[in-house]
């Protein structure tokens, strides 16, 4: 895994292996996606659905229609924030799989705070305070896995996954018992008035959260590839023993990585609430984190590539929802598609590895 990460990092530097290597990398990134589309197409055909019609519909509804593209871009906002958080963690060799819990707690915090804060202060300040609160709550939720990993070496995959189950339940409890809107019969938080939500971009329905998401992921990318702090995190991720040998404060950096990663997941929650949802309904869990994780892997932890893959995911999920209704394909077919991409990618990676070995021998 770490070899992947760092080879991705190395490829960002100008002097590389030259044109053929770049072509190979491009083929490795795009080829599996095309192959997976073809395979999933066969599956659709087996279900009695014309795959061209399905893909055409997905593209039409997710990308080429004005309302579709606006929905797609709006959906990208929280996904990009989550992707940014995942890139920080994964590049530092820390597998934060608890983003969904962190996201939901951030969302509930935002839904509880924002409607209250906008009555007290200017709306921009209310947003800012809400973002900070959501990030702090999500960070606090990652503290237990962070400390366990940093000082006891406890596997963070297990702890973050467990905390995500607890986090989703806690978010529900908070919605149903603490932040319940007394004005409605359905259990949900108070709703942020539409005029107090993040501004829309230009004359569209695209949420301003998209800008925040793009800033977050580009900032993270630059931090990880260009700054001393990012390099320290990459050293910890690529070779923890070398980090200790070089005198880096590995436990402290580990805690910071958890905080950044969880904070960005919490920010994603706040962006989704203040930008789009306005409130949190009980039992609401879009599970963005679990769908973004494969995208971040496909992008090899590269921020710019992640933007493209997140766009692809948004098109698939927005377009897929319409196509599913129209053509009678189960709504979860998007997940099948993503899974196929991952499997094909793993196979491509394996073949490439064998090929490289054979060439060197």
């Amino acid at each position, binding site marked *: 895994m770490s070899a992947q990460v760092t080879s991705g990092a190395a490829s960002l530097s100008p002097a590389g292996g030259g044109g053929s290597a770049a072509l190979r990398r491009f083929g490795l990134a795009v080829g599996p996606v095309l192959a997976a589309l073809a395979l999933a197409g066969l599956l659709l055909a087996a279900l009695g659905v014309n795959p061209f019609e399905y893909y055409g519909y997905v593209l039409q509804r997710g990308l080429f229609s004005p309302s579709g593209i606006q929905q797609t871009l709006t959906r990208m906002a929280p996904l990009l924030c989550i992707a940014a958080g995942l890139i920080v963690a994964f590049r530092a060799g820390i597998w934060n799989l608890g983003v969904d819990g962190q996201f939901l707690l951030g969302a509930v915090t935002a839904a509880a705070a924002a409607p209250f804060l906008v009555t007290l202060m200017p709306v921009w300040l209310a947003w800012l305070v809400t973002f900070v609160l959501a990030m702090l709550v999500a960070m606090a939720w990652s503290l237990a896995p962070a400390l366990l990993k940093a000082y006891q070496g406890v596997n963070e995959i297990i702890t973050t996954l467990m905390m995500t189950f607890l986090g989703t339940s806690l978010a529900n409890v908070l919605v149903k018992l603490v932040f319940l809107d007394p004005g409605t019969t359905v259990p949900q938080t108070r709703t942020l008035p539409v005029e107090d939500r993040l501004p829309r971009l230009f004359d569209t329905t695209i949420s301003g959260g998209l800008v925040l998401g793009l800033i977050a992921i580009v900032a993270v990318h630059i931090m990880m590839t260009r700054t*001393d702090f990012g390099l320290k995190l990459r*050293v910890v991720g690529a*070779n923890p023993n*070398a980090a200790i*040998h070089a005198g880096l404060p590995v436990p402290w950096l580990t805690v910071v990585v958890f905080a950044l990663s969880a904070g960005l997941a919490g920010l994603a929650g706040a962006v989704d609430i203040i930008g789009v949802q306005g409130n949190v309904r009980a039992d609401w869990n879009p599970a963005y984190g679990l769908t973004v994780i494969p995208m971040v892997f496909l992008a090899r932890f590269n921020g710019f590539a992640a933007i493209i893959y997140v766009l692809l995911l948004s098109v698939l999920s927005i377009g897929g929802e319409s196509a599913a209704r129209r053509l009678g394909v189960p709504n979860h077919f998007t997940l099948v598609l993503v899974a196929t991409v991952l499997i094909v990618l793993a196979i491509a990676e394996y073949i490439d590895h064998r090929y490289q070995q054979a060439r060197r021998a």
Partner: protein
Amino acid sequence: MSQASREIPAAGPPIVELEGVTKRFPGVTANDSVSLAIRPGEVHVLLGENGAGKSTLIGMLSGLQQPDEGRIKVDGQPVVIRSPRHALSLGIGTVFQHAMLVPTLTVAENLLLGGPWWQRPRKDALRAEVDALAGSLGMKVDLDSIAAELSLGEQQQVEILRALLRNSRILILDESTSMLTPAGIEELGGLMRRLVERGLAIVFITHKLREAARFGDRITVLKLGRKVGEVAPDRFRSLDEDALIADVVEMMFGRRSGDPEETARQTHVVEAGARPLLSVKNLRLKPGATSPGLQSISFDLHAGELLGIAGIDGNGQKQLAEVLAGQIASEGGSVLLDGAPVERLSVGARRDAGLRYLSDDRLGEGTVGSFPITLNLLLKQIGQPPYWRGGFERNSEIERHAVEKIRDYDVRTPSERTPIGRLSGGNIQKVLLARELADGAKVVIFNKPTYGLDLANTLATRDRIREIAARGKGVLLISTDLEELLQLCDRIAVMAGGALVGTVENEPGARAQVGRLMIGVAA
């Protein structure tokens, strides 16, 4: 146990021969053109320190690894041993250092593992076979006990039994005595004798001289991947134990005639009363699970002086280096660098103060293999100007620095952006030298600086070490190669069990003195 193997007369034609076998790993030559023959009826001792290449040799014999050069012959025919299963079918059984039994299964179940999956396990046949075999060898094996409940000695017996049940003609025992009690070692020795009397060949790997002399028929000495000597059975029998050990010590640590590594050493005289550059007092560390810790280590190192730390690997040398560098916290004691206490400083602060540490684990901790040379050269200075300004890296400065170091230290690399893991061991070492000797070095700790390097790089590294001392810096040289220490050092301290057991001035006669201290024979 097949009938045929018993009829082979003792010391007949070799069952397995290695011819010029070479095995390389990235940056390290683990076996360098090793030839040896394993004959029935002999306990063939493979003697050598950690890193001498014993484990790699066994790995190739047991089918875990393939030689890069040379060949292995079984019964006179060249054979490629493809896998451990293939090795077993050729009659080569291996008992590894760490027990390889499934702890939750009974002894009988463990012995039946690996049988054909489509057959029912034949417990009754096994019982009869084991009873006959164990009885005749004087082993006591309870087939119904759970493997985890057996002592380490008993587990080993089960593993030996397993190898015998598969009709092994050669039994390889890898450091089998390291986990045993003295009584267990005696028992194992007796068992080996009975086995070779039945015509088996035994390869007994150890780094303990006494055991080699007591239990062996033939001794092959490995050093840094090369075979440096062999004691044949007739000579073995003609010597008494002490003479034999003296003989082997000579091979392990002795001077080779026409040694290309030979160079004249210039003695350095420390001025009386001069303040030591590095002064270590009562440095202590608790023993770990696999390390002896440090027991009140004290020594002084003066400017321009080369102090060697000798000892069998794993006697606390690495811990000493890491405590001095600040990678692990000591449990007490003081370290004065140029008169100033540094024992509470961080790794980075100690480095800035001039205390440098060249790790022996070049790829494991010294570098990040997938990172380019440029960044590896600055691994211990991340964030410092002029290479980073305001948190952002400055590529031109970083690259200029790398190009300069690559030229000064003669690093052979396609580009300064090449991932360091692609370089040879010698070139990685040059990068590390360039990094650690960079401006401000006062005391440099070398841990096995020439381990795994070829001759040219070994000589270049040693020249570099001499040059550092000549420039008035203090050098602490940890090495398991006594020859290296004798060539370079002014004084040699010997470490055993986490303590400094003696310090020897490097004068004529030092070799024998250090050699004896090292193996704990007597001071």
